[in-house]
């Protein structure tokens, strides 16, 4: 026995060096790979830092020139080099808010249909179809909005609204002016269509996460479908739904091409929703390549920084809320 063991050792002896080398190589590989993955993870943070720092530096001249007045001034004149962000910020917030007013109820009703009412075999196809809406690139919505949707609104919808609300005090100023087709309202409607799939799919996901026992208990008491959704499902999923809505809002705020096509790019704050306006992203997309002079470019980058800060806050809240509901569901 001892002989055999000794012989085996002798046989392996010349291999020890090679074996050590292989093991060493593996160990080094292991360390290198580990640090490579770690560096890539850190790189994600570097990207975010890079965005903030580079936009900050780029926007510096504009903020030095105009100070905080940049955010509140409505004038936008490339010739005299007077730039203020009030009109684009106003346009961004108004179009996004109107879009959310339309898309949130619509999305919640679709989610309710998909989870409570829809026949089982239809659930997946309809869900996928709605999600495909989210995949269509924004420029497609833009070209469709410009050539199809805006003319349709101009010809049929806007004249009807103007004549219907013409004599009602508040509504007549809200829907005043000639029907251009393009304008704030058109942009809002297209944004609503674009964020609808996000709100729908997140609401559906959180609705589906409601424990069936809760719903069954409510149905067992004799609740109607609506009462189950209103008194059981919605209170249980409130945080998740708000998270989904904020996520949709983040998308709407930053949406560029679809809005650029139909908003009319006019730097003014108008009380009428039919009037052309502008948003932060539309201003940048329209004017950036034509901007002459450092101050003009810097003002546009400053707009980008404002947009990034707004969307960052909205998206951070959205993710925080969704994280909370994820933890609760487990």
């Amino acid at each position, binding site marked *: 026995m001892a002989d055999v063991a000794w012989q085996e050792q002798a046989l392996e002896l010349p291999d020890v060096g090679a074996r050590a080398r292989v093991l060493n190589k593996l160990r080094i590989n292991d360390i290198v790979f580990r640090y490579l993955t770690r560096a890539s993870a850190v790189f*994600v943070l570097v990207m975010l830092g890079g965005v903030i720092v580079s936009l900050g530096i780029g926007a510096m001249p504009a903020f030095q020139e105009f100070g905080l007045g940049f955010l509140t001034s409505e004038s936008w004149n490339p010739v005299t080099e007077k730039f203020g962000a009030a009109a684009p910020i106003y346009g961004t917030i108004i179009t996004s808010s109107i879009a959310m007013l339309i898309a949130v109820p619509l999305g919640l009703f679709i989610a309710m249909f998909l989870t409570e009412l829809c026949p089982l075999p239809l659930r997946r196809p309809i869900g996928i179809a709605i999600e495909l809406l989210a995949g269509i690139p924004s420029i497609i919505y833009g070209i469709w909005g410009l050539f199809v949707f805006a003319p349709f609104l101009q010809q049929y919808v806007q004249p009807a609204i103007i004549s219907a609300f013409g004599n009602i005090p508040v509504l007549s100023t809200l829907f005043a002016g000639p029907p251009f087709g393009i304008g704030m309202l058109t942009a809002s409607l297209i944004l609503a269509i674009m964020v609808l799939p996000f709100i729908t799919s997140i609401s559906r996901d959180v609705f589906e996460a409601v424990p069936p026992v809760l719903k069954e208990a409510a149905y067992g008491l004799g609740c109607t479908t609506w009462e189950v959704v209103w008194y059981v499902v919605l209170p249980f999923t409130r945080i998740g739904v708000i998270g989904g809505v904020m996520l949709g809002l983040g998308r709407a705020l930053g949406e560029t091409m679809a809005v650029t096509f139909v908003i009319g790019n006019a730097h003014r704050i108008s009380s009428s929703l039919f009037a052309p306006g502008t948003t932060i992203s539309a201003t940048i997309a329209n004017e950036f390549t034509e901007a002459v002079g450092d101050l003009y470019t810097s003002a546009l980058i400053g707009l980008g920084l404002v947009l990034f800060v707004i969307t960052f806050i909205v998206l*951070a809240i959205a993710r925080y809320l969704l994280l909370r509901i994820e933890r609760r569901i487990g």
Partner: protein
Amino acid sequence: MDASLYNARRRRNGLVKVVSVSATLVGLAWLAIILGVLLWHGFSGLSVSVFTEMTPPPGAAGGLLNAIVGSLMMTSLAVVIGTPIGILAGTYMAEYGRHDKLTVVVRFINDILLSAPSIVVGLFIYEVMVRPLGHFSGISGAVVLAVLVVPVMVRTTEDLLRLVPDTLREAAASIGLPRSLMIRRVAYRAARAGIITGVLLSIARISGETAPLLFTALNNQFFSTNLNAPMASLPAVIFQFALSPYKDWQSLAWTGALMITLAVLALSITARSLTATRKSQ
């Protein structure tokens, strides 16, 4: 008294049901209308010359060849740059740093980058690449798209590696496989379908991106494969042609829009069916 309450509840429920069905129909109708209009306008302009000729000056016949080539080049380069970074970062989060502070922070930031406005990313690359180089270039267009690919890849890689059962990892470790080899040979293989899905989804995401390309790759009316010079891309050409007053340009824009949409829909449906088969297995 009771009967009236009962009737009121039933009526309200019926009303809500009708509203909810019609909301769904409205959502589906939009998809149908958009696709229908695209097919209607885009199909008439679809011909061989679209794929063989350059973008024309107004009034002349032409195609979209330079834009198609530019889009393909920048998209593939972006995937080549962005995918490895995304996969490696996702690997760290799912394999090494599962309980790290770093992972939590990176996941949070990555989710924000995932839906951050792409136009801001365009400005970022303009500041760090176009301005120092002094000119617009195809390579900076590719880098913008790569920055947009990374978050998608990080997210899908992390999610799918987490679905790989730990028993597989333990089995690999028990035969003495080093961790990096275990990840590459075992975990990646188990998550392969999902990672391919991620790549397809990220291509779908970037192939329609327009705004960030406007400040980086700009556009080019001529055929060019020079990555150091301005480069045409389908979305940029659609933007320029659609807003022009010329009928032939507008019709080419519709054709380009149809091509992008079909490509994106095909990519997302393929991606979906890949994950669907994986789930059912």
